[in-house]
């Protein structure tokens, strides 16, 4: 910043650094998301050319199914991240919601009611997280880490340590259904993504989340109801985790207490690789989807090529570090710091 100011002379018009005038590009969330999208496409092309198994309807539908559930969780996690929080409990919430919903269903509760009750559970968990952060002043990292343990334990308690079998056939029929050749899980993700994108980009609530993550003090001074925003962000995170938990349950036809282990980390990684900043104020639904798509593609490619899954984990780690580094470089250039 200082070096920029130093060049000013009285006769010269104060100009913004060139990078800030790329409005049409920013609108689409460039550049890191484009980089990640490019990487994903490249991977698709390479896989299509080198294997006969990648570009088959079966395999592509498989990727779409996988990316759907990952994305829904990642969309939710993006919301606490935007306000400079975090939610590490979502993976365990996926398991808990799955076994709770499955237990309700096997106890004879009608499907719509079971779904509604599970969503209420999501609202309750989100409210608890928000209350702990906002009112009790517990750091989000700590309280949701506690949730990661506690809700996983809860999932085992509810299911007595085993999977819950015997779900209504309608659920697995739904999970396998396709419409226009696209799996129903993907349609579900699309609807949730569009709703969340709408909230983020068009409503005051979305804007206030960005303002809060960007500069908490300025948001407070502008008279924004911080409490409302905190509750909203954590409730979105838990509720979407519950939706993902139920979709996963439907897909596997069981409620499993071991489902969703480490999903919170994949979700956070997808959001961050998709352009979200862990320091708040930055991130988009579209970028998060692209991030999740990249990870799903890598996992699928590694499977098809028979690459050791341990290498796959190493590659994912290197990728996260690289993408965030490149993004930081760009941001530094943008703000004029050399």
């Amino acid at each position, binding site marked *: 910043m200082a070096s920029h100011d130093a060049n000013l002379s009285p006769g010269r018009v*104060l100009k*913004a650094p060139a990078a*800030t005038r790329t409005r049409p590009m920013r609108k689409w969330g460039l550049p890191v998301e484009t980089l990640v999208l490019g990487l994903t496409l490249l991977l698709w092309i390479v896989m299509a050319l080198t294997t006969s198994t990648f570009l088959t309807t079966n395999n592509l539908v498989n990727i779409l199914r996988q990316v759907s559930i990952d994305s829904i969780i990642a969309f939710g996690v993006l919301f606490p991240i935007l306000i400079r929080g975090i939610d590490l409990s979502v993976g365990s919430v996926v398991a808990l919601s799955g076994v709770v919903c499955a237990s309700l269903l096997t106890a004879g509760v009608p499907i719509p009611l079971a779904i509604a009750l599970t969503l209420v559970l999501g609202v309750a968990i989100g409210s608890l997280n928000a209350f702990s952060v906002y009112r009790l002043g517990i750091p989000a990292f700590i309280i949701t880490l506690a949730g990661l343990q506690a809700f996983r334990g809860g999932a085992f308690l509810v299911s007595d340590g085993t999977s819950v079998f015997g779900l209504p056939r309608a659920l697995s029929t739904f999970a396998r259904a396709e419409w226009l050749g696209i799996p129903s899980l993907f349609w579900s993700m699309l609807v949730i993504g569009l709703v969340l994108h709408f909230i983020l980009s068009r*409503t*005051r609530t979305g804007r206030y989340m960005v303002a809060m993550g960007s500069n908490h*003090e300025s*948001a407070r*001074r502008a008279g*924004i109801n911080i409490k409302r925003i905190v509750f909203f962000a954590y409730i979105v995170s838990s509720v979407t985790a519950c939706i993902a938990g139920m979709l996963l349950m439907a897909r596997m036809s069981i409620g499993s207490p071991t489902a969703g282990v480490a999903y919170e980390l994949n979700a956070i990684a997808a959001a961050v690789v998709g352009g979200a900043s862990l320091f708040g104020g*930055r991130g988009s639904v579209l970028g998060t989807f692209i991030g999740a798509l990249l990870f799903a593609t890598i996992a699928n490619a590694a499977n098809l090529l028979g690459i050791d899954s341990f290498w796959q984990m190493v590659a994912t780690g290197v990728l996260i570090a690289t993408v965030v580094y490149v993004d930081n470089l760009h941001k530094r250039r943008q703000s004029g710091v050399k």
Partner: protein
Amino acid sequence: MSLLEVKDLKKRFGAVEVLCGVDLTLEAGEVLAVVGDNGAGKSTLIKHISGVYRRDGGEITLGDEAVDFDSPKEARRAGIETVYQDLALADELSVGANIFLGREPVRRWLGLLPVIDRARIQQETQRLIDSIESHIPDGATTVAGLSGGQRQAVAIARALYWDAKVVILDEPTAALAVMERENVIKLSRMLAAKGVGVIYIGHNLVEILEVADRIAVMYRGRIVHVTRSEETTQEELIKYMTGYSERRETAA
């Protein structure tokens, strides 16, 4: 009748008496500078006017109404805008989003859902930044990419747009380059020309003498001297700021 009147304002923090009976008047359309050494009580004084602190004693009148603000929000609603030293802008939001933050115009999407009226914000912002000649290229630019002076201009534009009666500028040029400093002085005069009462807190006496109509000097929680800026000099102001004149009076 003055726009803003502060009478016998008192505040103590524990054993320390920070304000010991401050009297101050501000007229519409003037820039009143408040100067003083560190710890003289300038910040505490303006934080009472902007609703951050509650006073222990004294009165504040805005227009013809006695006021006692609970919060900065309430002061803002009454027409007192504060441009803070740290600017309080959200970096990741655009210039327009910052100016309208917390007061976004809303329209109904498909006649149903309330969404931010982005077109209106964009249009009003463009009009506003053109009118203050702030050299901000585009209201859709994110604040993160602006220079210190441009950020200051955004903060002042926000006050201007929302028809503030009183604008408090707290060390607005502290972190700015020389050229940008001139721009802030120009903006302050522009606010005054629109009938706003401007309270300008500062350290730099050259700048104060240039921008202010009147200057109030604080020393140890009191206003010890008020003068028109054309009737004073740096030397005289420094005497009052350092308490030199007061010591001489007690000696005499």
